[in-house]
């Protein structure tokens, strides 16, 4: 299943129609650092590849880099087919406006769902291969020999004793017709892709030179600080601008969208100080009465409701469970989570009567462009978005609410660039949160301890209903069933259970729900994998052996790989225990083994996690290793601390002091095991997050005999006897 993060198809068609004609005439290709004159002198080989006379290779990357390494991986794929010198590779972003003007030659900019490499590998490799063929053809023409007699390696074309570099023939090659078809290399022959190459974007990140949206600056720029109604969905009733207009640096006080106040000043500190002093009244209506207990009760009711959307069904689960020798039932929950990107939301916008420009970090450049057009009231052809690296995305920057706000403020001050910055507190309280859900799981075992029927009722919030209601399928949110899906290459359920029913009672509180790294695979894996341990125990069997009876081959193989590497079943240090979990998500098969101990005082220590991944093809094993170890910080932060709660309609947590996350002292050693089968393309940015919590929770049970079904762990007492 493909999840669209924001720009709906209908929006795009309208947008594309709007830009047909004039805009493309004025289009020219921007280059990185050679100045405008040189830029216009160097012609691209195609949308993906520009080779400069000095052999420098510029690879264009449409997806957004937010730490996950996609830009390096995508460049490796292009460079592999291009056969260029990797040391001469640099990169640039095309803009979403250019993409529309060129009939979406770079296709999808949206960066989420671990899709960067698995979804675009084919066409970016073709771009590299086509450019290579054109370069060879240009050299062959110069030598007046058949192209088939030429060979190429690391950007040097050879025919007998003659050699030409790519830079020497690039200008001639750019005049040639691209080949109609190209043959891509067998991954077995890869020299650049598949290798643990260093990232292309590291040095500036350790010297302070890297510019993020928060750091972007322009001559004459002013800073805007914003405060939206603390209750999501509430309105602005009144504000008293006169009280702060004379404060230092203040330039303007405005309301936007009927739900937020903004102070524009010369510096952020001045803007924020005035915003804090600005008297404001909100109209929150009945939403102001919503409490967390009420939300929880709403979800609890859904656990036994008659109506639910069916996501996966086989045989007769209810009948099988009713007739089973043993019935096991458990209820789990997963609270709201916040992404907490290290860089709070921000965007810089400049509006004039005939142009709207935005500079920002975004996971979805085209959605940001659409938001700029909508907020400015200008046709999309008169807008563009210049993407900057993201100080974290995790799904949060797939939404363009902060872009809209920046443009609305810029529109109040035409010609003045406005950088709109959310404080951490604004960011924490105005997110689109990982949805809250609960699940009731009911299993039936026969007298021999075989699982004869399984029912999973999910009750809780739908992301699509919150963000993309047009993508609901007859009211149902298919994304709710990530990891539970009956078929498909995305997030398929791994167990063969003869009688199965997985359904969803949709319950949507007013808090906006959204995509959060790993999305619904996360809690679905907790529900399923913790309950598998409960079933195994009821059947009197080892959790691994019990799972192996029902797991399909690819799921079983990756779990076995993790367990083998971790030494599952072999003696551990005294007081240490292994918990296991597996899931398929984002096209990849993953499993984890957590080694944990719990002191008599209840202090949990996660010593080690061994995590296996089968992503099909491996584009950069070193970067996968980093994604996997990082994913456990994300998953375990949620398991240990992550909980957003609602009081009087508003989010209660405001900063890291009330929404804690994992730090280095709690970081387990992570060993990454890659078991690629080379027969598909899977994502790696997200899937292992989902095995973090269930593997640890299953280990905690072995250590303490306590089944933790309510997260986060900080609310649980693991002390002996507690």
């Amino acid at each position, binding site marked *: 299943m493909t999840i669209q993060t924001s720009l709906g198809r209908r929006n795009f068609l309208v947008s594309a129609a709007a830009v047909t004609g004039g805009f493309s005439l004025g289009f020219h290709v921007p280059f990185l650092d050679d100045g405008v004159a040189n830029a216009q002198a160097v012609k691209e080989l195609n949308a993906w590849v520009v080779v400069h006379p000095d052999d420098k290779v510029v690879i264009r990357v449409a997806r957004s880099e937010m*730490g996950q390494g996609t830009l390096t991986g995508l460049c490796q794929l292009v460079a592999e087919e291009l056969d260029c010198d990797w040391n001469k590779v640099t990169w640039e972003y095309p803009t979403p406006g250019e993409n529309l003007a060129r009939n979406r030659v770079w296709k999808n900019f949206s960066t989420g769902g671990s899709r960067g490499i698995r979804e675009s590998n084919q066409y970016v490799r073709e771009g590299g291969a086509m450019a290579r063929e054109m370069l060879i053809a240009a050299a062959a023409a110069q030598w007046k020999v058949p192209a088939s007699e030429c060979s190429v390696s690391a950007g040097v074309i050879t025919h007998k004793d003659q050699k030409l570099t790519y830079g020497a023939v690039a200008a001639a090659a750019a005049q040639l017709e691209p080949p109609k078809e190209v043959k891509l290399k067998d991954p077995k022959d890869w020299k650049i892709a598949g290798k643990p190459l260093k990232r292309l*974007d590291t040095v500036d990140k*350790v010297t*302070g030179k890297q510019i993020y949206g928060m750091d972007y600056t322009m001559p004459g720029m002013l800073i805007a600080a914003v405060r939206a109604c603390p209750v999501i969905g509430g309105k602005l009733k009144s504000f008293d601008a006169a009280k702060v207009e004379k404060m230092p640096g203040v330039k303007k006080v405005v309301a936007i969208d009927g739900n937020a106040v903004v102070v524009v000043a010369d*510096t952020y500190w001045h803007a924020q100080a005035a915003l804090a002093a600005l008297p404001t009244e909100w109209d929150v209506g009945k939403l102001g009465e919503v409490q967390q207990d009420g939300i929880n009760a709403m979800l609890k009711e859904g656990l036994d409701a008659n109506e639910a959307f069916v996501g996966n069904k086989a045989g007769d689960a209810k009948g099988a469970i009713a007739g089973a020798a043993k019935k096991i039932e458990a209820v789990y929950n997963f609270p709201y989570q916040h992404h907490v990107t290290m860089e709070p939301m921000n965007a810089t916008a400049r509006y004039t009567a005939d142009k709207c420009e935005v500079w920002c970090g975004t996971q979805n450049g085209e959605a940001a462009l659409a938001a700029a057009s909508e907020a400015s009231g200008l046709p999309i052809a008169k807008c563009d978005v210049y993407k900057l690296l993201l*100080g*974290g995305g995790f799904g949060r920057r797939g939404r363009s609410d902060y872009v809209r706000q920046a443009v609305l403020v810029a529109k109040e001050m035409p010609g003045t660039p406005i950088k709109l910055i959310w*404080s951490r507190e604004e960011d924490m309280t105005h997110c689109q949160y990982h949805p809250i859900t609960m699940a009731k799981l009911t299993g039936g075992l026969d007298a021999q301890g075989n699982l004869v029927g399984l029912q999973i009722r999910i009750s809780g919030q739908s992301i699509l209903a919150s963000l993309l209601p047009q993508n609901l399928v007859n009211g149902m949110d298919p994304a709710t069933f990530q990891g539970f899906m009956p078929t498909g290459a995305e997030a398929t359920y791994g167990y063969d259970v003869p009688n199965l029913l997985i359904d969803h009672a949709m319950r949507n509180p007013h808090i906006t729900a959204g995509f959060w790294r790993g999305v619904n695979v996360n809690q679905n894996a907790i529900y399923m994998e913790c309950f598998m341990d409960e079933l195994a125990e009821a059947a009197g069997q080892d959790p691994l052996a019990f799972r192996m009876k029902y797991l399909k081959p690819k799921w079983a193989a990756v779990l076995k790989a993790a367990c083998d590497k971790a030494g599952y079943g072999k003696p551990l240090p005294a007081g240490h225990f292994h918990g296991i979990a597996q899931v398929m998500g984002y096209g990849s098969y993953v499993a984890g083994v957590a080694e944990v101990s719990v002191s008599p005082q209840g202090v949990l220590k996660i010593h080690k996690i061994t995590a296996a991944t089968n992503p099909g093809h491996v584009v950069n094993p070193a970067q996968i290793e980093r994604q996997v170890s990082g994913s456990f910080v*994300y998953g375990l932060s949620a398991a240990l601390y992550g909980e957003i709660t609602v009081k009087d309609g508003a989010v209660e947590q405001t900063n890291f002091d009330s929404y804690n996350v994992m730090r*280095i002292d709690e970081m387990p050693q992570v060993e990454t095991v890659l078991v690629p089968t080379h027969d598909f393309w899977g994502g790696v940015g997200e899937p292992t997050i989902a095995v973090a919590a269930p593997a640890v929770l299953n280990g905690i049970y072995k250590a303490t005999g306590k089944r933790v079904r309510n997260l986060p762990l900080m609310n649980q007492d693991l002390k002996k006897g507690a």
Partner: protein
Amino acid sequence: MAVLNVNGKAVEHNAEPDTPLLWVLREQLGLTGTKYGCGISQCGACTVHVDGAATRACGVPVSAVADKKIVTVEALAANGTLNKIQAAWVALDVPQCGYCQSGMVMAATALLAANPKPTDADIDAAMTNICRCGTYQQVREAIHAAAKA
């Protein structure tokens, strides 16, 4: 105009005395390598050195450091040569999104200056910076690597 000693130079600024050092560095002096992450001295993205000690610049009023020596991430690479921590960070490809990494590098540089061979426990105690990409494993490896370099 008030004066600060930043990266070995006397620099002037016109911020009010209660303005956090972070915003003076970023908005008055253009030193944007020091990041805003939380504003309450929790996350460490704004870590700078004040008289050599790792300090969270968002929690320090500029008036409190008027007579101190302030060093930001931009000054670590003397004459363009990365310091030991930065070099280890590059060698081990530590950063992911990178937003927290200025602060990480500053904290690690201060740690190594005070304690050239830190143990894992020393690293746990000193490196309280938050990273949401989850680079902690690589941060630990890189500090040990830098200590051996």
